[in-house]
């Protein structure tokens, strides 16, 4: 399984600026990968192109090896007519019920299932939204700042658990937290804007599977690479 994009060119209609110009990158195998770049560089736009919500002006998105690609972002809301527990219950396929239970525990949401979406804190909203994507059947999941408002401790726990539970899936994790990306991601594509001659640079991350794997200096090294690339 891979996700290959070649020569993407794109600019929003009505604006003169091109966002991507012949952008090419490739996520080569399942695992926890990342799209990184400064605010406004085009990560969310790229994600929208990948999942088909936007169409590139030019170029190819090769998704032949992928059955189902989902895009989760952090402005989503759950419907308000039932509790989040009831909602999750309804949208989980039967064969994923076990996963659901486990995830609810890992995500620290057990005591909040009776609440409506509007009664949650921001970080709780973030978590429940990501959770409902994880219990779907997918090959590729783009996670666009879905945990931006969750505290770091919990976020680390969540990432580690996701990595353990979904080894065969391809994640594209979009976040501004450099340490996190350097620690947990494998292939990190850093976007740099169309004015730079190499628009996307690949950095290899530490791809940690638990909280203790961290070798301080190599992490430092990766972080530097990322920051320099961006």
């Amino acid at each position, binding site marked *: 399984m891979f996700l290959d994009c070649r020569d993407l060119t794109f600019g929003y209609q009505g604006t003169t600026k091109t966002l991507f110009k012949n952008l090419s990158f490739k996520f080569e195998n399942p695992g926890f990968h990342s799209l990184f770049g400064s605010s406004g560089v085009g990560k969310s736009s790229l994600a929208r192109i990948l*999942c088909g919500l936007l169409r590139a002006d030019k170029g190819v998105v090769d998704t032949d090896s992928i059955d189902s690609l*989902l*895009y*989760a*972002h952090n*402005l*989503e*809301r*759950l*419907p*308000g*007519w039932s509790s989040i527990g009831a909602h999750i219950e309804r*949208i989980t396929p039967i064969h994923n019920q076990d996963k659901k239970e486990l995830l609810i525990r890992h995500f620290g949401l057990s005591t909040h299932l009776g609440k*409506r979406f509007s009664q949650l804190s921001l970080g709780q909203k973030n978590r429940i*939204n990501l959770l*409902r*994507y994880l219990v*779907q059947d997918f090959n590729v999941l783009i996670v666009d700042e879905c945990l931006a408002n969750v505290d770091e401790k919990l976020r680390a726990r969540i990432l580690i658990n996701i990595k353990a539970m979904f080894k065969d899936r391809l994640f594209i994790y979009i976040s501004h937290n450099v340490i996190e990306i350097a620690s947990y991601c494998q292939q990190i594509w850093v976007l740099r804007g169309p004015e730079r001659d190499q628009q996307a640079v690949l950095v290899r991350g530490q791809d940690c599977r638990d909280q203790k794997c961290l070798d301080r200096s190599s992490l430092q090294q990766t972080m530097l690479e990322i920051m320099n690339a961006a």
Partner: protein
Amino acid sequence: MLLRRIYQFLMIYLIGLAILLMIKYVVNLSDYVIPSLGILLNTFGGISSTYAHDVFSTLCVAIIGQIFSIMLAFVVGILGRKTTWLGSLIKVAAYNIQAYPIVALAPIIFILLGDGFVSRLLIAAMICYFPLLLSVVGILAEPITEVEHFYQQTGRMRWQLEVKIRSFENLPKLTTVIAGSATLAMAGTIVAEFIAANAGIGYSIRIALYQSDLSKILVALFMIGITLSIYQGALEIAGRLVKSAWEQ
């Protein structure tokens, strides 16, 4: 809540009446043009029970008509919500029919359906449904992307769900329109009775008009107003119950 509605209505009615009487005495008009308070009270005593009965029978038709038009508005709203050719055809049809004043359509309706209960109901529903339709179409046609995105992504979106999401997100607007359309259902039924029927308060108003008897008309307006205040109050309470049941 309900009580407040009633006494607010009374206040408005009395203000209106006071203005009429003031005009009467300032311009010095006879009882034929504007009845005196004495005549009015007299008329009230004489016909209030008949009229109460009439208004009640009208209200029953109005309620059925309203239910009918709520359903119709949703059906048309659901079908017309898409920007497809058929959707827009249905909308054009629904809009156009409304442009025809009921006075022009009535003869055709009577030819097709006779002048029984069904015609009355149809006219009531037609007058009441259009404002509903407008709101329902407006609401159902507008995507709530933040909520719908997930269902689109996971291929779960069905029209029922779409309708449910959009209705829920616009619940306050919908209940305003539905409660408000009660008055229109009532007005519609009265017009239908005025044109065709031989029962109901609309029929009584017609007779009063032919007799040039403004005092009867004023009594009728009073009865209609008070009944409607109660009905609308009840609808609002019901709306609040639905809302809290759905949201809690």
